[in-house]
């Protein structure tokens, strides 16, 4: 998939953030309607397989070891060998110190390595440390960088600071695709989510991502809908595509299918591809596998028939 290089304004301008206020009630009702679609049989199976291929299999723990990361990489490549024709996940998401391990473990496979950076998850550090951490992750071999925005600065209204920060990280990323984590659970309202999404996209984000997974609430359908609509408006305006990654709290296949329905009905089939949409999740994969097994075997499954992590 080739993407047109986005034409970015070199500098922040307040006009980047103009948008009508978000109708919260309307968004919540619209999001709730996506959960009423009936997805059965073959469509369900296709949806489940697509979900698997869109997962960023994630481990972001202080206790992560090389062994744990290697095990996760093995899982990324062998989701459930008992079934033929399963896709691999889209990427493995780890801390910068584990990027090399993951890269080696995945070998020449198509599975990408994403690394969080910029003083994840709080983002409370200096610009130079954030840049050098990003540089480190890229040098270690990360294909994708998941950065966090400075929520404190954003909420204080220092939009130019946040814009410049994202733009500076984007520059360091080079060929690596940049996902910008807004941490919507800390932004307070859907208006702020909309504003942060526009800011991130204008500053050069390849993906916008809801959450770190360390803060509650994490990804929700209404928040994701606001972000998808921002992406849509940007696309109508510029013709450039941006990806979306809801992360945190999506642990059941049913919920994942709701997200895909929302994606399809908001951005259309062009976005129904791991290049443009990801799920940040750790336990979702097993839940989807259990559903696939249920569809194949006709009986409900138990978690202990699938890999532990």
């Amino acid at each position, binding site marked *: 998939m080739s993407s047109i290089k986005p034409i970015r304004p070199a500098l922040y301008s307040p006009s980047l953030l103009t948008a009508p206020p978000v109708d919260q009630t309307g968004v919540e009702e619209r999001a709730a309607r996506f959960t009423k679609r009936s997805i059965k049989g073959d469509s369900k199976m296709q949806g489940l397989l697509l979900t698997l291929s869109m997962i960023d299999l994630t481990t972001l723990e202080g206790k992560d070891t090389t062994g744990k990361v290697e095990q996760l990489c093995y899982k990324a490549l062998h989701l459930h060998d008992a079934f033929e024709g399963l896709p691999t996940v889209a990427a493995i998401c780890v801390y910068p110190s584990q990027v090399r391990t993951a890269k080696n473990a995945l070998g020449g496979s198509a599975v990408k390595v994403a690394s969080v950076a910029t003083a994840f998850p709080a983002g409370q550090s200096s610009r130079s440390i954030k840049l050098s951490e990003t540089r480190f992750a890229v040098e270690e071999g990360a294909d994708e960088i998941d950065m966090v925005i400075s929520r404190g600065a954003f909420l204080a209204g220092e939009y130019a600071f946040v814009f410049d920060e994202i733009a500076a990280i984007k520059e360091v990323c080079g060929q690596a695709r940049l996902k910008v984590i807004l941490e919507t659970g800390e932004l307070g309202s859907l208006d702020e989510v909309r504003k942060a999404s526009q800011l991130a996209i204008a500053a050069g984000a390849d993906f916008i991502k809801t959450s770190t997974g360390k803060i509650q609430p994490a990804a929700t359908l209404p928040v994701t809908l606001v972000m998808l609509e921002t992406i849509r408006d940007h696309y109508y305006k510029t013709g450039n595509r941006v990806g979306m990654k809801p992360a945190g709290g999506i642990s059941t296949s049913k919920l994942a299918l709701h997200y895909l329905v929302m994606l399809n009905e908001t951005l259309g089939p062009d976005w129904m591809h791991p290049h443009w949409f990801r799920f940040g999740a750790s336990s979702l994969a097993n839940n989807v596998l259990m559903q696939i097994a249920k569809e194949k075997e*006709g*009986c*409900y*499954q*138990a*978690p202990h*028939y699938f890999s532990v992590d």
Partner: protein
Amino acid sequence: MKKANDRIAVLKTYKLYIGGQFPRTESGRYYAALDAKGNKIANLCLASRKDCREAIGAARTALGNWSMRAAYNRGQILYRIAEMLESRKDQFIAELCAQGMSRSAARKETVGAIDRLIHYAGWCDKYQALFSTVNPVASNHYNFSVCEPMGVVVLFAPESPLLGLVSVLAPCIAGGNTAIVIAHQFKALCAISLAEVLNSSDVPVGVVNILTGNQAELMPWLAEHKDVNAIVQSQKDPSLLSDLRKKATGNLKRVIHWPVIDWHDTAVQSPYRITDLQEIKTTWHPIQQIAGSGSSY
């Protein structure tokens, strides 16, 4: 002026009991509960396979905590259920009468259920001591066998609406298992009222889940579900049993048959009902000298 009996009737909505909540069935289906003369007395949820799946998930989540609890504490909680049932006796008697039982039979049924709970409450911290063993073996090993709960157990409740239900439920949870009760389709009112009692008796969320519906319809889904460890069938009808046994082979579920004619018979209450739902774990522990004194373990 209106007379007292001119009040608009307030009818109770009987719902399911899953994971400490009282949801309606996800399927939206329902059926009528009838009295002895065939008059409708309430609507009941006709549970679906997805309700079963939710209930099994709740029971699996609850299992770790419930099975690891001190046996004494499980006893206290069973006793608490009996206490709560005692204080709401009249409600159950009225409900049983509405379903066609005579007042004296209803009273006997309710009191019997309370006493049965007390019986099993007492067994909670005693059966392990009786049924666990230290085994003589021919090698230098300390060999012992202990009871462990089977896990998530599905109970097909018998026709006896309260006593029968309690008689299958109490030994199941006394032994540290978690339960999904499928109430008898036509005697289900008390099952849901019992859920209200359980909900206010310190029974942790998900330890007991109660569904109303068609046992025959739900049986294949439950029997084939890979996250169920055992199924208790207490119907007298043996035709239900063979099909159940066949379907349960997928994950080697235990199928236990308790065909009881008279639930008032005290022979029904026995610690062997608890051990029917226990696995025996045997451990071989090498004996070694740990001190000069000759003491060892």
